[in-house]
């Protein structure tokens, strides 16, 4: 289980990178947050009106200051943006020869189709240490396929395929995580939660085969 009030565990190296980006940005904004709050409180206290007809000093502005507090935030913000670009492409471009799992949103469950034809409901299993690519779409309304521990999501749309990929660390084999639907999709939206299990590649292959046989035996 993830902790309840901060970033969840990092399942992938990409999650690690995203968190790093988050902490860098958090550091910068905390600095400015503290700066503004301290100035605000200081000015409120320091310049409190003490006499009824007291007035403030006669200044209308200052071009140097104005330039400084336009340029500095602009530079920092553009830096944040530029710094983020690399991660966008990293997340966007799937690595070569991934294992492809098809994800289909339904009102209200997740359907997963594995390469060997196996088809499950709300039961997602992925092999650790392998590149897994999700091909995501929807059978009805828009859903949101979201793996908080991998720090990534894409909407599941009807008539359009969205994708993202993960490569889960081997240290997490055996652990289970929840994959909620996070795009509002009606009355069943809150209970539209899949269960994701991380397996070793061998276990994963065995599981895929035996499950498929069970499914075929049933039908």
């Amino acid at each position, binding site marked *: 289980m993830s902790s309840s009030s*901060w970033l969840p565990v990092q399942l992938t190296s990409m999650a690690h990178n995203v968190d790093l980006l988050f902490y860098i940005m958090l550091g910068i904004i905390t600095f400015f947050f503290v700066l503004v709050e301290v100035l605000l409180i200081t000015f409120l206290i320091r310049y409190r009106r003490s006499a009824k007809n007291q007035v403030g000093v006669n200044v209308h502005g200052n071009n140097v200051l104005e330039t400084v507090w336009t340029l500095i*935030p602009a530079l920092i913000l553009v830096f944040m943006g530029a710094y983020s670009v690399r991660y966008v492409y990293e997340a966007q471009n799937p690595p070569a020869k991934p294992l492809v799992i098809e994800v289909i949103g339904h009102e209200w469950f997740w359907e997963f189709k594995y390469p060997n034809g196996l088809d499950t409901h709300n039961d997602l299993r992925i092999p650790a240490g392998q590149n897994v690519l999700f091909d995501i779409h929807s059978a009805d309304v828009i859903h949101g396929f979201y793996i908080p521990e991998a720090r990534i*999501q894409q909407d599941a749309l009807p008539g359009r395929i969205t994708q993202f990929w993960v490569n889960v660390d081997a240290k997490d084999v055996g652990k289970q995580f929840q994959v909620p639907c996070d795009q509002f999709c009606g009355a069943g939206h809150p209970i539209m939660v899949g269960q994701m299990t991380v397996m070793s590649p061998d276990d994963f292959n065995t599981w895929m085969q035996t499950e498929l046989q069970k499914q075929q035996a049933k039908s």
Partner: protein
Amino acid sequence: MEAVLQVPRRSFVREWVLTVDHKKIGIMYGVTALFFFLIGGLFALLVRTDLLSYKGVFDAQSYNEFFTMHATVMVFLVIIPMLMGAFANYLVPLQVGARDMAFPRMNALSYWLYFVGGITILLSMVYGMPDSGWTAYPPYSLTSQGPGMDFFVMAIHIVGLSSILGAINIIVTVHRMRAPGMTWNRLPLFVWSTLVTAYMQLFATPALAGAVTTLLLDRHFGTVFYDSSAGGDPMMYQHLFWFYSHPAVYIMILPAFGIISEVIPVFARKPIFGYHAIAYSSVAIGFLGFFVWAHHMFVAGMQMSAGIPFMISSLVIAVPTSVKIFNWLATMWRGAVEYTVPMMYASLGFIGSFIIGGFSGTIVAAVPLDMHLHDTYFVVAHIHYVLFGGAVMCIMAGIHFWFPKLTGRMYNEKLGYLGFWLYFIGTQVTFFPMHLVGLAGMPRRIASYAPIFQTWNQVATIGSYILGLGTIIILYNLMISAKYGRKVGHNPWHARTLEWTVSSPPPEHNFDEIPVVTDSPYRPYKPEELTASKESA
């Protein structure tokens, strides 16, 4: 025996219903918006009450209707009409030195359209409420059962029309009806901000009308705009919707910024710092506001890298906003700050809280971080820090600031401070924890949730009750003070904009003689003028 002059009483219908006086229309807008604030607030409390338990207290369908109604009412019937209907209507003609709006009858029409739009939403509470969120994304909104969605679409249409008419009125009034000497450089900053906002309303609202009209056509007339099996594309709706609704978030904050630019110099007794920077940054926000809409759609099916330009524009739009913050702070620097209720809302209440929303905005604007945080409670925290910590705090600053102008009486100060502190504390307790559960991955718009999130949700719910209590106290104070408050002169704050030069409440046609403006409203204060004019008139 107070009444000196016996004016023959006019009937309620003549006095209010048939009025074309911008001040009365402004007050009608304000009272109606406060009424809807209570309705929207009630839905908010229902939403928060449901989340007291991780299992949810109400059934999911009711919950969905509650949060849809909450947001729809708050956005379309409270914040926008309050700022652009009530404040702008009341203040713009007075502040530019005009006797009324350019088109007084159209002004009345825009109020009554808003009223009818509001009734439409109220009717949906009887006949079936919409349940698709205020964003109403298809295909879900197409499949949504009952008449709720249709009421929603009708209401948006009517309110949208009202908003366009109101915008035209403000634009023409500011361009054509300024008093002699009211140059652009002397224009009060509130007027600057409403002018920019009016342009945004004018250009953005038609996109919303297009979005909801196509919804209606798809629902009832067999078109397939959003039916992907027939070649339609649901993402098109999101583009149209956000092409309106992103500018709309600035429509909900720019006039509020304008209020702050009026309140802070008066209580710091200093000229506003950086008049031009503040005015032009509003223009910059108005312009840039049209180029960031797709930051709401980073994970909605666009190519991830297509988000990059929108990420950059979204980060850039934070610059003019931070310029304003620094200018407001610099206005307080070496001022003579008085802790009145409006000043508390403007300083600690607004600046102190709003910046959190601005900062979280830059976090979600970064595409890789939004990949994690989109549609989680982190976004809900962001929205509320900008809309509650921002817009609502400014509205409260403005209401208390102009209350003596509207009524000729002062609010009760003790109750005023009490209301402020409840609002300030309530805001932090309600909305801060939402960042935390959002970071941990709690999706938004859910009636029940994983048990690990329960504690922080309960904290947030307690916060919302504090806000509820605060609202009751604030409104009670305004109501009794309008009747029994201490009488004050025409300018109890020593403020400089033109509305403070006329009686409180202002005479029917604002100015017996159109004023000739010779100076900026942000000229420095001199100690002599303060002792002389206090409590006169």
